[in-house]
């Protein structure tokens, strides 16, 4: 429903614009003139001022600009992305020293080692690396992805597949059997377990309608449900909770964790046999730039190197460090990471995300599937020497992503563990990865046929589960060469969550009602800093919450009518029916205990389905 105070949309605004134009002589350029070149100051007034170009602020800027708001979007840095930026090694060096000078709110304890091999005249150039401050993965079925398509921001980006999820246990990596096919062909799984696993997967796709199964476990953990109700054993339980669900610890609650597991399963096979995508040249930093560009196309004005210092809610004037001013007719949106001194209204950022980012001189292709260039590694609670209580997650990005040069690889490790313990856990996880990559890359792969699996598209992949086993006794000889090692702690007001909930991102109500005379941020709306969540799941919700505050309703959030027809977006109905049929078949197969993998074919129309046997 449209709320009464909803502003007029861009389309509604246009006629008046044209009427005005008709009455004015047109050939006078409105911004550039002979005596009066480009204005060096910012525009005199705008509807909305957004400070910080992180991913949430950038999505918001684009949504508002397309909706018809006059947006000024600034950043105090000389690059885009703010807390979601993708930076070069040189940029990271400056960033770290600014954190240690207490110049960047919400970041602390930054420690950096960068090898002398990275430099202008060295083996590696600083700019050959794109290091994410907030590394994330994107599920193939997610609201961010839908908005990327709808807004056409995807056109500015390039995406690649990520299908490998390793779980670390008993000192080795076990590759996730994330497809039905793998479950059936995995000889190490007894038939009973296979059947129970299928039963659970069927249930989880439709858990809301079967409360009788999960409600009795509501106050207990998912692990209990899996073990008691579905008779699954520890390795499968761990895989489901930590690799597929990507949960943080063993107290993962029901039903939220069911939702997390389903997120993975429904994303599988949307674009092919993988659940997750990541963007080339950098993650959130690239996506932020894409939305900023979209906003600019819709009329937003951009200014980097512009540091916001204060806002006066009475005169509605925002002031910048260089003395320029702008009148903000409606709202000022501020990222906590760009909050100036005297920001007494900033919500408390009490949750820590501890990160360790390394660049190693190894391509780490052992960890990637086929021709992919990224993987996820999960260290469940208590799997590390440090006796970790919380999960440590790692995103591995290789040179195919164009984020690092050939022969190198970026490892992003992070944990929700609070306090100084976190660093011990990160170190322990790093050591485990180090040992493992040496072991896997320096031993000749035994000539054992069962180690190599040939997937449907003809690519052969190494069964890393078996590899892990065969290397158990391998003794560490070589060392991994680290080119770069960066520790830092980022703070956020968003607690680790299982399922996205708008209330998590509500700017504290106090901020807009309280008036603190000495504060420079009265009446400012704060965005949320990135949470510890490994995916982009929060981004759209966090942007919508603020959009609604400004516009009055989120009905027309990215409700864009492109004048031209986009030829590529009209293949929906075809795919939809097939996907549903295929799911039903999958379930029937299981119930008849008939493990005939070709069952799904009986409805025809499947000539081009990639990975059709998956869940």
């Amino acid at each position, binding site marked *: 429903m449209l709320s009464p105070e909803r502003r007029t949309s861009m389309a509604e605004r246009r006629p008046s614009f044209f009427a005005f134009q008709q009455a004015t002589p047109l050939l006078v350029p409105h*911004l550039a003139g*002979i005596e009066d070149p480009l204005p060096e100051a910012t525009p005199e007034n705008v509807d909305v001022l957004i400070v910080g170009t992180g991913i949430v602020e950038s999505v918001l800027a684009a949504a508002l600009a397309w909706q018809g708001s006059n947006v000024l979007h600034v950043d105090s840095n000389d690059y885009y992305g703010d807390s979601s930026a993708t930076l070069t090694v040189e940029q990271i060096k400056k960033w770290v020293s600014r954190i240690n000078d207490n110049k960047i709110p919400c970041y602390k304890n930054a420690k950096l080692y960068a090898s002398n091999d990275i430099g202008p005249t060295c083996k590696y150039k600083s700019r050959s690396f794109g290091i994410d401050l907030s590394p994330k993965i994107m599920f193939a079925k997610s*609201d961010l992805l839908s908005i*990327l398509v709808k807004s*056409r921001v995807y056109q500015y980006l390039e995406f*690649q597949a990520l299908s490998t999820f390793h779980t670390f246990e008993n000192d080795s990596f076990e590759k996730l059997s994330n497809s039905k096919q793998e479950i059936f062909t995995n000889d190490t799984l007894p038939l009973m377990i296979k059947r129970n696993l299928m039963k659970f997967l069927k249930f989880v796709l439709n858990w809301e309608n079967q409360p009788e199964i999960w409600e009795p476990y509501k106050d207990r953990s998912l692990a209990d449900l899996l073990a008691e109700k579905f008779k699954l054993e520890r390795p499968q339980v761990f895989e489901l909770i930590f690799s597929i669900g990507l949960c943080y610890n063993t107290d993962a609650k029901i039903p939220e964790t069911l939702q997390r597991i389903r997120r993975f399963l429904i994303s599988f096979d949307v674009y092919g046999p993988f659940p997750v995508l990541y963007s080339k040249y950098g993650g959130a930093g690239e996506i932020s*730039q894409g939305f900023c560009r979209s906003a*600019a196309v819709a009329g937003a004005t951009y200014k980097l190197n512009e540091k916001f210092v204060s806002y006066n809610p009475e005169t509605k004037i925002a002031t910048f460090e260089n003395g320029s001013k702008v009148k903000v007719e409606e709202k000022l949106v501020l990222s906590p990471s760009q909050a100036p001194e005297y920001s007494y209204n900033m919500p408390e950022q009490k949750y820590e995300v501890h990160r360790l980012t390394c660049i190693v001189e190894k391509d780490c292709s052992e960890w990637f599937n086929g021709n992919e260039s990224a993987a996820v590694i999960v260290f469940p609670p208590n799997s590390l020497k440090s006796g970790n209580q919380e999960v440590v997650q790692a995103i591995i990005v290789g040179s195919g992503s164009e984020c690092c040069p050939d022969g190198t690889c970026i490892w992003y490790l992070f944990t929700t563990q609070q306090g100084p313990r976190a660093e011990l856990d990160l170190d322990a996880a790093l050591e485990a990865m180090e040992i493992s990559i040496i072991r896997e890359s320096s031993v000749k792969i035994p000539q054992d046929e069962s180690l190599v699996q040939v997937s449907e598209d003809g690519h052969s992949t190494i069964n890393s589960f078996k590899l892990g086993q065969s290397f158990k006794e391998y003794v560490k000889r070589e060392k991994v060469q680290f080119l770069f090692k960066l520790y830092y702690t980022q703070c956020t007001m968003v607690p680790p969550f299982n399922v996205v909930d708008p209330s998590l991102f509500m700017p504290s109500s106090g901020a807009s009602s309280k008036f603190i005379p000495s504060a420079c941020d009265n009446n400012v709306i704060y965005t949320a800093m990135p949470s510890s969540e490994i995916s982009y799941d929060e981004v759209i919700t966090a942007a919508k919450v603020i959009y609604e505050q400004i516009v009055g309703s989120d009905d027309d959030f990215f409700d864009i009518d492109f004048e031209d027809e986009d030829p590529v*977006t009209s293949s929906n109905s075809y795919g939809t029916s097939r*996907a549903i049929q295929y799911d039903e078949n999958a379930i029937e197969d299981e119930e008849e205990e008939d493990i005939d993998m070709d069952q799904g074919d009986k409805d025809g129309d499947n000539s081009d389905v990639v990975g059709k046997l998956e869940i």
Partner: protein
Amino acid sequence: MLQFKLVLLGDSSVGKSSIVNRFVKDTFDEFRESTIGAAFLSQSIKIKDPKTNQDVIIKFEIWDTAGQERYKSLAPMYYRNANAALVVYDITIADSLLKAKSWVNELKEKVGNSTDDNDNDNDNNNNNNNLVIHLVGNKLDLVEDDPEMRSVATEDAVKYSTDENLLFKEVSAKTDFNIKEVFQTIGEKLYEIRQKELDNNNNKQNKGEINISLPRPSTNDSTSCCS
């Protein structure tokens, strides 16, 4: 078919969007507002291979922009992987040429730097030459009506272009003068460069990573929700 990315740069109101619209849709709008809309256009042209005399289709992926260049806040994404740049000024506004020159400098600096050059460290500087920069003086029609309006002499722009090794033409988006020719010249130049690259890099391995096309799911189950 060969595809190339082309970016537009220049002061506000010099006619960037008008040039693109003339080229892509063959329309001109007297009352065009500062760029709003789908500024991601593509258009194909035909050129002749100078050796075989066969037709080659060249597709331009055109990135128009506004609001980000006003304060020199273009994102690296905008330049990244660009094959050609159209730097536009208005021949009736002297200042717009100054701005065009500063964009040329910036392009030479940024694109030369951002090119992925891990495999060919020794010929770093060659990457600069791979970006085709075409300078364009727009609104020639205004000068034809009233020569007094000209503020940038053709000779000055020609000299600058020769010194900086740029392609150059004066055009009019309004009367469609020289617009197609500009893109034709760029297309031929890009083709020539691509052929040279192919000759030099025959042995270069393609990494073979596959990009995913987001609007084309292989299946699409619209009944399931996600959060």
